[in-house]
């Protein structure tokens, strides 16, 4: 019985193996088919859901909402964009978002560069592993937890004022202001800047530093003429994150911002969640979309995508 079963099993396995062979040989000879089979599900997902969604977003920005019924009116109009650009408030919100995103990006470059430089040039291999783990821990710790922590720090009787009073200063009230947003955003996205800058600095061969100095350049000259230009792709890669993530955020303005801290994201969120004016929200969301499209296409030229 057993042997017959084994024979039957063996034959079936052989047949299966032959089948697999035939199929795999056929696929091997036609790489286009294999690539197509691999790409079909993910491409389908992206094209049908995500790209279609981006298209839907772009299209609905040209529609309006009937103010009486709240239904979407599918007539082509530039009304939403006119509303945005004719309202000083809306322009101020867009400029504030852009301004803070820029400030955060610059702050993070300043904070991250010396840190990444230390990691790449001065740290021992062991220290390097420890430091990169220490950077990645906050990067992957809960975003909400970290924003919430700053709410606790900025509170009237929080850690910040406790420390200030300890050294004899008066307490400050910076919670719920744009300053608070600037600090929190810089904090939240800092690891996104450190990692790519470190990766870029690490790739610079040691010999280039020596060559620069052998040729008579002093430390600062080496830094500005060799190190910084060669680390630019990393800086640009990091800035894509810090800039884009700040541009698209609306949680931090709600949690640590004040009355004058409305972001593009808040307007979008309120129009979707509260007023139910999806077309207007879509039109407003195209502002960061266009900004990021320009930014990404500029960044692409610098080779920053190798560092993402």
């Amino acid at each position: 019985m057993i042997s017959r079963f084994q024979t039957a099993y063996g034959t079936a396995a052989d047949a299966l193996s032959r089948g697999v062979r035939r199929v795999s040989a056929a696929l091997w000879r036609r790489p286009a088919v294999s690539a197509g089979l691999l790409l079909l599900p993910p491409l389908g997902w992206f094209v049908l859901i995500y790209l279609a969604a981006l298209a839907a977003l772009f299209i609905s920005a040209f529609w309006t909402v009937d103010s009486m019924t709240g239904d979407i009116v599918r007539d082509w109009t530039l009304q939403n964009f006119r509303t945005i650009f004719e309202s000083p408030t809306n322009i101020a919100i867009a400029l504030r978002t852009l301004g803070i995103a820029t400030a955060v990006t610059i702050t993070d470059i300043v904070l991250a560069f010396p840190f990444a430089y230390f990691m790449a040039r001065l740290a021992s291999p062991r220290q390097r592993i420890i430091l990169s783990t220490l950077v990645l821990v906050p990067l992957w710790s809960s975003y909400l937890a970290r924003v919430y922590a700053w709410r606790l720090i900025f509170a009237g009787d929080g850690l910040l004022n406790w420390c200030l009073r300890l050294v004899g200063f008066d307490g400050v009230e910076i919670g719920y202001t744009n300053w608070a947003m600037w600090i929190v955003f810089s904090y939240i996205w800092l690891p996104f800047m450190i990692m790519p800058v470190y990766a870029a600095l690490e790739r610079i061969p040691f010999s280039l530093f020596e060559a620069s100095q052998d040729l008579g350049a002093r430390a600062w000259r080496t830094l500005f003429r060799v190190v910084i230009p060669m680390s630019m792709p990393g800086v640009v890669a990091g800035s894509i994150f810090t800039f884009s993530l700040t541009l698209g955020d609306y949680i931090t303005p709600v949690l640590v911002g004040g009355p004058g801290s409305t972001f593009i994201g808040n307007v979008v969120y309120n129009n979707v969640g509260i007023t139910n004016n999806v077309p207007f929200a879509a039109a407003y969301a195209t502002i960061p979309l266009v900004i990021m499209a320009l930014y990404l296409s500029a960044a692409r030229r610098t080779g920053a995508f190798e560092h993402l």
Partner: protein
Amino acid sequence: MESRAARIGLTIWVGFVLAFLFVPIILIIVYAFNSSNIQSWPIAGFTFKWFGSAFANSEIRTALLLSLKAGVIATTIAVLLGSAVAFAVHRFEFFGKDAVSFMVVLPIALPGIITGMALNSFFVFWGLGLSFWTIVIGHATFCIVIVYNNVIARLRRVPRSLEEASMDLGADAWQTFRRVTLPMISTSLVAGALLAFALSFDEVIVTTFTAGAQNTLPLWIFGAIRLGQRLPEVNVVVLVVMTLTFVPVLLAYRLTNQAGAMVK
């Protein structure tokens, strides 16, 4: 090569940045054990009681369960689709290859509200009600890139010749995949999956646009903080979320030991 002053300056800077990075995280841990329900520093005393009251809260439990479920399903989709793209991009030359790898990064390279808004208007467009599944679709979309990054980084490092050797020695395509390819990339798959899960478990911006009446854990936290309600429980839940995202990340880090692939 750097002067002594530069070394000292850089070391101090590193210490400063590390303090900046970790003070808030330590604070979260400390506040979870705050015996008072008033959130001030220094904390009034040490207690475990808020852990009990947080886990006794059915809203929190429901949200936790929903987050876990959405995370697991989204991660599964991301692993399948993300590794498929990684294999296709690594193994084959085809028209629009750059466009494909660019497209995969888009959901996290574009601002969160764009992805959220886009998915939202897509669901509205097709008249799909927001549900658990729309949350999953959103999460899977931005998790694919995490798996993709991990797997393609590994594929670029393992020599193709091992698979050719396997084939030359008579293994068929399935055997080669099962015995050679899969063992070589398995840790990167697991790492990608863990990171994708961590990302999904913590995501709030896209989720607010794709969730209907359902609350994921981050959505519950966001709502509670905004309303200033149940803050002692918020402290506990925030610590739990932090731990639950931190553990998979640390595991993933040990598995890959390669920082480059971990950057979101």
